[in-house]
């Protein structure tokens, strides 16, 4: 944590209110995000319990599982979830615009521009917490290898038609969420934590209710008190005022309310199965739907506060203006969304269980690029983020005091003006360290030449803090092709700029071999491996039903 962030947290403690960590919003929010609040069954992987989902805060769709161990009920839940999510995704997948993409021509190996379609916007998915993102990933994994009757008429326990497709989309969203700065799938807690510092630890910040209590406390109450109530406040029946944001439930809810209700449901179902005549069956059906209604109402009761909290968080975020470069990152999300749409449409198999060597390396490389780019873009968009980089010696703000024209020593001398900058900051400059400033939105490069000795004697690179120092930079590019620099391309005395030691744009890494050319050091081409093709369905056994 940078000292500036620490300071913001301490100020939050002192003032009883969260303090800003950003002056702009660093993530793109669409005008119609799909919010998903899922719950899962304790102790079991991928056994959903219920969910609220939708784009209208006033009318969430409630989907529940009355008996989470019943495979049919679980499939019914997943089918209904697919019905709620897929049409939303598809409405975006169907609207495209022409765009150009660089591709390598397989024949010549040359880069060529290809006309393709890019979705004009992408479907955005918001979950309450980071655990929600993991759950989306887990749901995706549990669904994408399922077989439907259409896939295989003989498959035992076939999955409902659209479930595998939902699994593939959720897998894509879950994987995309690992890319730094991506906004296809976001957790409300992450979004809020990026923009505000609370007076508690980052661990406690994972609690959506407590987090909102600090950011937007009730009138007249300090954030800490409101947060404590959100964390631990219980009603007379021992139930939390602010249930966990999921997917885990509160054990007290499970034990005191949910378990008895599920038991009643099980009993009613057994009773219905043993009903001896129509009249008895009617009465018992009534009991069964009563028991089911009770479970639905219990789950709705613990889901709704989280649902409302997510929307409240989105409202708070919407008040911040969007950072200038967030749109650029969203465009990448649109490419990612379009790419997945195209793979689905082309009939490609679901994503494998684990990446092959080349895919893993490619993903890691592109995420590292995305991370560096995100850090640079956020600093360029937001003076408060830049302040953190300045404190760390990775950027500085200074006033130009002098400009001296100079030229490179080559056959065709180019301008290499020497610019003297005064600053009271202490950037980590070494011999010929490169620094960058933004010139019309593009980076201009300079290199550090020397510190200017002051009149008085003094240590040049370690002078005590706050003292002003003079340093000389040599501008090396973006001055046009002529012998004289293009107008406006060289700083002038009196100009005050931010210079960064980090690059503004990121170069992509080298091209990796194609998977079928995986070298011997990495096990050779995949598929040659003994475990065979990865996209076999999970074996389905009676054990699935617990």
């Amino acid at each position: 944590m940078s000292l500036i962030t620490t300071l913001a947290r301490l100020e939050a403690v002192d003032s009883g209110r969260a303090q800003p960590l950003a002056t702009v919003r660093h993530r793109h929010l669409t005008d119609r995000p799909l919010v998903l609040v899922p719950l899962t069954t304790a102790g079991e992987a991928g056994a959903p319990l219920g969910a609220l989902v939708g784009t209208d805060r006033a009318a969430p769709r409630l989907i529940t599982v009355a008996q989470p161990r019943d495979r049919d009920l679980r499939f019914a839940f997943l089918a209904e979830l697919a019905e709620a999510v897929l049409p939303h995704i598809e409405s975006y997948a169907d609207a495209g615009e022409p765009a150009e993409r660089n591709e390598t021509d397989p024949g010549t190996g040359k880069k060529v521009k290809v006309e393709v379609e890019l979705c004009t916007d992408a479907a955005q998915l918001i979950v309450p917490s980071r655990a929600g993102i993991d759950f989306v990933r887990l749901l995706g994994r549990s669904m994408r290898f399922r077989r439907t009757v259409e896939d295989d008429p003989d498959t035992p326990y076939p999955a409902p038609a659209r479930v595998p497709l939902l699994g593939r989309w959720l897998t894509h969203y879950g994987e995309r969420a690992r890319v730094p700065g991506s906004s296809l799938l976001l957790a409300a807690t992450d979004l809020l934590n990026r923009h505000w510092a609370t007076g508690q630890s980052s661990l406690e910040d994972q609690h959506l209710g407590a987090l909102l209590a600090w950011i937007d406390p009730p009138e007249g109450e300090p954030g800490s008190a409101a947060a404590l109530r959100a964390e631990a406040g219980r009603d007379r029946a021992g139930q939390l005022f602010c249930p966990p944001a999921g997917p885990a439930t509160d054990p007290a809810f499970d034990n005191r309310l949910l378990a008895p209700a599920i038991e009643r449901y099980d009993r009613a179902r057994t009773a219905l199965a043993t009903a001896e005549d129509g009249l008895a069956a009617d009465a018992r059906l009534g009991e069964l739907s009563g028991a089911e209604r009770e479970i639905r109402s219990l789950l709705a009761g613990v889901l709704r506060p989280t649902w409302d909290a997510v929307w409240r968080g989105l409202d708070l975020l919407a008040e911040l203006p969007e950072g200038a470069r967030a749109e650029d990152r969203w465009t990448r999300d649109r490419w990612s969304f379009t790419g997945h749409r195209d793979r689905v449409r082309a009939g490609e198999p679901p994503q494998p269980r684990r990446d092959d060597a080349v895919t893993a390396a490619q993903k890691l490389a592109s995420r590292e690029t995305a991370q560096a780019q995100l850090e640079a873009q956020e600093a360029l968009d937001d003076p408060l983020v830049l302040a953190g980089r300045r404190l760390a010696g990775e950027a500085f703000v200074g006033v130009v005091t002098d400009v001296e024209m100079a030229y490179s020593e080559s056959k065709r001398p180019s301008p290499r003006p020497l610019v003297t900058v005064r600053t009271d900051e202490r950037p980590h400059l070494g011999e010929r360290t490169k620094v960058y400033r933004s010139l019309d939105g593009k980076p201009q490069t300079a290199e550090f030449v020397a510190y200017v000795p002051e009149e008085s004697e003094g240590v040049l690179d370690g002078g005590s803090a706050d003292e002003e120092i003079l340093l000389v930079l040599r501008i090396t590019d973006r001055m046009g092709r002529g012998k004289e620099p293009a107008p406006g391309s060289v700083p002038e005395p009196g100009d005050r700029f931010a210079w960064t030691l980090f690059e503004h744009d990121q170069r992509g890494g080298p091209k990796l071999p194609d998977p079928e050319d995986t070298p011997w050091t990495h096990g050779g081409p995949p598929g040659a491996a003994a475990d065979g093709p990865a996209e076999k369905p999970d074996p389905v056994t009676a054990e699935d039903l617990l």
Partner: protein
Amino acid sequence: MLATSLGSPAPFGQSQFALVRGNAFEKKVKADGGTELLRLLFERLGSGADAPGEATVPDLTAAGPAGRAARTALALREATAAGGWALLDHPMLALEVAGSPAYLEPDAVVVHPDGTWTVVEIKSFPMVDSSADAAKVGAAARQSAVYVLALERIAEVTEGAEVGHRVLLVCPKDFSNLPTASVVDVRKQRAVTRRQLTRLTRVEDIAAALPEGTTFDPGCSPEELGSAVDAVPAAYAPECLAACELAFHCRAKARAEGAVETLGRSVRGELGGLTTVAGVLAAAAGKEGDPADPTVAALRRAAALRAEALESPGSRGGGAACH
């Protein structure tokens, strides 16, 4: 319970769904005299030996933890001497710490025909596509390392016995309740625990180093523990919230004292000798502290940069920001 009586309830307890599921899973793994368990163990760790057809499952019942521990030691010796496969279901192991015996109960220990003893841990978190939650696996590895240490004390006096440093972790596979297993090398955790046990002198530190469910003999009464809680110096850190019933109590105390640790351990790292919220803010505001102290100087620089960024027109899209 203790936390509740101190007036600071922490969100603890286990869902009965998880409990039922966990118990059912362990029972399933050990069903039929441990056939499935031994099959998994043989598949992962059985090099050289004959496949376990029939394994002995000795009766380990005895009175009291000390009696059960003695019974376990005897069963281990007999099984090792017999030279076949044996499965010890919930054995009891004694480990002396700071002068008093602690009793530990692993899920199972398997004796191989060659005299190797393998600790088996059965957990109910899933292994999905051969990977599992690393924090949970880490906790299981530390827990198993303590069992390995306790077993080593018995093996020292048992002819032909050797304790394996590779333990078998059994978990549900993917989304099913079918068991699958993975071998975990616990040499690191064993070395760490061994050094901890020789260094630790305070009971509460030792308790923290041992697996949950460890019983001490004689045990501490809740009253003793309660007074011990306040005697412990302010060592609260947010990580405590996930691990200890008393964390809410300690947090309230730490917050009342204005301790900066309430914001996370890493916060302390940059604040040097400053330990309170008020102290840090006063230093940052220039009201207290020696400007020659690097912490104070850095705080003031941070405060000035933060204020500039928040106030400057730059924060509204111009000024010094790189637009």
